[in-house]
């Protein structure tokens, strides 16, 4: 016996020591006059058995437990290698459960539980005002209101921010840069140390003066634009012809406002100039108390600047993650439930496999204990074997978790999770699922040893193994496990089917417009440019003309806020001659007349406005069918008038024609197109010429022959010829892409694909579980079947016997699964929007499961029925 773990050195030293002994003995004999060969022989004779001396000496080294372990491992590996199918299925079952659970939970943890790097992010909130119709909007405050707010008793600190698109003005084409302006206390407010250099300081923005030209870079921008230059601090960057010195770089998880550069914000006393407000509450302040304080404070503010607030509102505070939790929380928890089921099914599968094998190995264990193996030694052997399986499964599972996390992160709907989230494998959950897998392996792995610990050895050995049928107890455990597995699989399949149905509904939705080969190029207008109505409308008109004359472009349209499927500015409106309902609201879209042909939205009645009407800002309106049906049920919309009382200019930002809040003439009705996302019903919509009211941003919608994004560079060049400083947004998508970033699409896609994947895996696991149980049972009853067939049973009869034994378990499982699914249907319906369980789904799922189960039984049953009776009888 050779034990490789004793160090080679130790063994060599023993060899040498004994060899020296022999040499010394021989030398002494030679000194006494013996002949050389004779002396050596005599010395060896006197020494005794060299090998045996070595062995008994080595035993003193005291490593025999390790020797046993080595034995067990070698034996275990041999046993597993002899049944690779069993080993692979068991390992994969565990690995899938571990990998899926860990990865999904890691995403849940990263996105929902701990997404932010900011200090005390649980106390960071935003102000939200709700109007009486249930619309919510963020409250922005001006400089003096911010100062009053900071004195509120529940506030620990408050900071303000603003966003603007700037451009680099050094390269060929201007590059869009997302600037976030922050008050100088913001870096203290966030409490995140910079990666390089420093953050913004109070000295960067002294009260009442223009701020210093300093910039802190966002991590991604630093990587992209400066290739992660480690000596960046102190260098300069030019943005819209203004030079800033770079004072610092924020760490990767600091992505507030998805800023690429962070610049000091100038807080002015101008009442119309408002900022987004960031608040951290004092510890221990309840939301209710804070809401009450802010309600009265904001009511005061609303008297100062009534246009910044809804008419009647109530204030609530919204935590940083509240929106994301409601966007994607349900989706992720649903997935978590799915993977938990998968883990259970996986562990169930391993238990079934181990139990089935245990029954088959009872004979072997009985023989081994009959020839003197101690019970503890047998236990240890079985434990080693099942631990080998579990540990291999765990290792594969960890690798799988790693890959799956990356996949899920790629599939997360882009704007439905905080970009601060650092999603990585969550250790506690990894330990939990690995632990569960190990426990399953141990518990079911040693059960045969526990059973055969008090075996009637004689009985087991006398009854020829193969003829023995499984004991009643073993069969019942198998039955329960199989039925449980099938029930859970059915639940998972039904969930997957519902999710897929929901997603297919979104994919096949009638949009009302044609998104293919159309893209939307966003164009942010620079601060202090085109500040008069005439200048800005001329600029927009020129942009549209240049682009529409490009050879690649089939049609072009301009809209400042109307890229579907979630578009328009929701406002109150009135219809001339009709009393306005309390909440009569519509989505107002500012578009050019080309918009409708680009998107292929058909005109139902009336006419579109023409170019001259656009250029003079004619007060004409088109309405969608929803509005027409709702407010002009007699079809007399055309010729009617409507007005949007809130539609006023806010120069220099929003430039409107005089009388933009007065009456508009309705000249036509267009078909409905989605305007409130993919799942909600279409809202009443009004289209007016874009020149009526122009913000500091516009979009050009372009229909092309080729994939539209390939023409983007030439479009940027065209824009450049009009205004060398004018950039287009960096993140340009085609309209199919705009559909995919809708949260409904993203979470529907995530749930449907992952759920379906997990369900298929669960089905495969359940099938292998059933298959192996039936196979073992059949193998053990081979002789019995032989006898039956020798006595005249036909193959068909044997087939029936096998099927009947499985049918009870499968039927029980299916029944339990159906009941479970119906019970949980409510939960499912709440989380998967736009789809619910129905009879065809339930029926289809049951059919699929029964067919799979039938196939898993059929293969081994077929083997049993085609056996030759004589062979079966002789079969040991």
């Amino acid at each position, binding site marked *: 016996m050779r034990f490789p773990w004793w160090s080679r050195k130790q063994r060599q030293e023993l060899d*040498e*020591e004994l060899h020296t*002994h022999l040499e*010394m003995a021989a*030398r002494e004999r030679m000194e006494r006059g013996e002949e050389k060969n004779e002396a050596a022989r005599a010395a060896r004779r006197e020494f005794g058995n060299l090998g*045996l*001396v070595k062995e*008994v*000496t080595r035993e003193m080294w005291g490593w025999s437990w390790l020797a046993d372990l080595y034995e067990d491992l070698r034996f275990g590996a041999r046993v597993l290698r002899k049944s690779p199918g069993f080993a692979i299925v068991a390992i994969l079952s565990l690995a899938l459960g571990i990998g899926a659970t860990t990865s999904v939970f890691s995403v849940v943890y990263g996105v929902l539980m701990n997404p932010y790097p900011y200090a005390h992010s649980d106390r960071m909130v935003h102000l939200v005002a709700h109007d009486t119709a249930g619309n919510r909007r963020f409250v922005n405050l001006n400089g003096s209101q911010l100062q009053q707010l900071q004195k509120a008793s529940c506030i620990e600190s408050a900071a303000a921010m603003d966003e603007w698109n700037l451009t680099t003005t050094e390269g060929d084409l201007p590059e869009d840069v997302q600037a976030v302006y922050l008050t100088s206390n913001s870096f203290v407010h966030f409490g995140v140390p910079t990666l390089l250099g420093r953050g913004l300081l109070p000295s960067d923005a002294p009260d009442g003066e223009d701020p210093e030209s300093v910039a802190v870079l966002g991590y991604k921008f630093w990587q992209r634009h400066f290739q992660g230059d480690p000596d960046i601090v102190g260098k300069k960057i030019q943005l819209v012809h203004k030079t800033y010195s770079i004072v610092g770089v924020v760490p990767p998880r600091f992505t507030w406002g998805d800023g690429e550069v962070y610049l000091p914000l100038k807080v002015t006393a101008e009442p119309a100039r408002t900022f987004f407000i960031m608040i951290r509450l004092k510890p221990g302040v309840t939301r209710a108390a804070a809401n009450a304080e802010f309600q009265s404070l904001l009511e005061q503010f609303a008297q100062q600047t009534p246009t910044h607030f809804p008419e009647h509102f109530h204030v609530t505070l919204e935590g940083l993650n509240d929106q994301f939790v409601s966007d994607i929380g349900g989706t992720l928890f649903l997935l978590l439930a799915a993977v938990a089921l998968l883990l259970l099914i996986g562990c169930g599968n391993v238990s079934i496999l181990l139990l089935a094998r245990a029954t088959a190995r009872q004979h072997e264990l009985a023989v081994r204990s009959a020839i003197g193996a101690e019970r503890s030694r047998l236990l240890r052997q079985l434990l080693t074997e099942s631990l080998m399986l579990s540990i291999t499964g765990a290792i594969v599972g960890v690798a799988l978790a790693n890959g799956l996390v990356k996949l899920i992160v790629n599939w997360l709907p882009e704007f439905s999770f905080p970009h601060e989230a650092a999603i990585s494998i969550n250790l506690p959950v990894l330990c939990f699922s690995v632990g569960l897998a190990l426990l399953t392996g141990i518990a079911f792995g040693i059960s045969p040893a526990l059973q055969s610990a008090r075996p009637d050895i004689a009985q087991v050995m006398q009854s020829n193994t193969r003829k023995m049928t499984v004991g009643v107890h073993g069969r019942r455990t198998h039955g329960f496990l199989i039925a449980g597995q099938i029930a859970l699989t059915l639940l998972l399949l039904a969930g997957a089917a519902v999710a897929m149905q929901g997603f297919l509904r979104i994919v096949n939705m009638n949009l009302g417009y044609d998104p293919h080969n159309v893209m939307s190029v966003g164009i942010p207008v620079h601060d202090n440019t085109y500040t008069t109505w005439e200048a800005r409308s001329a600029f927009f008109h020129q942009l549209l003309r240049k682009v529409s004359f490009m050879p690649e472009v089939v049609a072009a349209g301009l809209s400042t806020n109307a890229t579907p499927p979630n578009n328009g500015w929701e406002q109150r409106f009135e219809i001339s001659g009709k009393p306005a309902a309390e909440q009569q609201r519509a989505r107002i879209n500012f578009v050019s007349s080309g918009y409708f042909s680009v998107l292929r939205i058909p005109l139902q009645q009336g006419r579109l406005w023409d170019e001259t009407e656009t250029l003079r800002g004619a007060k004409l309106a088109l309405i969608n069918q929803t509005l027409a049906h709702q407010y002009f049920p007699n079809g007399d919309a055309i010729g009617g008038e409507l007005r949007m009382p809130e539609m006023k200019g806010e120069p220099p930002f929003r430039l409107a024609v005089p009388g933009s809040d007065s009456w508009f003439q309705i000249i036509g009705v267009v078909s409905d197109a989605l305007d409130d996302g993919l799942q909600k019903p279409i809202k009443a919509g009004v289209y007016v010429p874009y020149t009526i009211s122009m913000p500091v941003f516009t979009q050009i919608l372009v229909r092309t022959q080729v994939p539209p994004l390939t023409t983007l560079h030439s479009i940027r060049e065209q824009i450049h010829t009009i205004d060398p400083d004018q950039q287009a947004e960096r993140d340009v998508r085609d309209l199919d892409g705009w559909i995919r970033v809708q949260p409904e699409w993203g979470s529907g896609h995530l749930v449907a694909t992952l759920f379906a994947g997990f369900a298929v895996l669960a089905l495969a696991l359940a099938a292998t579980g059933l298959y192996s149980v039936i196979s073992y049972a059949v193998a053990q009853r081979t002789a019995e079947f032989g006898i039956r067939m020798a006595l005249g049973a036909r193959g068909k009869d044997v087939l029936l016997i096998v099927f009947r034994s499985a049918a009870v378990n499968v039927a029980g499982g299916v029944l339990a699964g159906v009941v479970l699914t119906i019970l949980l249907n409510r939960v499912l319906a709440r989380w998967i929007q736009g789809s619910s369980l129905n009879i065809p789904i339930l029926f289809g799922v049951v059919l699929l499961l029964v067919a799979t189960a039938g196939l898993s039984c059929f293969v081994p049953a077929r083997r049993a029925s085609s056996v030759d009776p004589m062979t079966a009888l002789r079969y040991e």
Partner: protein
Amino acid sequence: MAEKRERYQNRIELLQGTLDLLILQTLQWGAQHGYGISVAIRNRSGEILQVDTGSLYPALHRLQKQKWIKSEWKISENNQRAKYYRLTATGKRQLTRERSKWAHLSDAIAGVLNPFEDENEP
């Protein structure tokens, strides 16, 4: 082979206490290698005690594990590399204990074998 092994093990058992004492005592006179120890025991016992290698080496390795002796490779007087064993401090204390135990034992055995010797001598 199993049978032979058994025999060796039995001898170790038989000799254990005494062989340990003899080895420790031999090493008190200075570091020595395995062969040297067996020769020393043989010579000092007037060629009566022949130490079996199958007992000697396990005993040496066991005593080393118990930290009563230490080993190191040195060059012998015949210019040969050999593993030398030497007593440790705990080994010395153990030797004292073993010696007094042996003295008690041999006194007791002597007393049993010659009950009247003491009275007869004067």
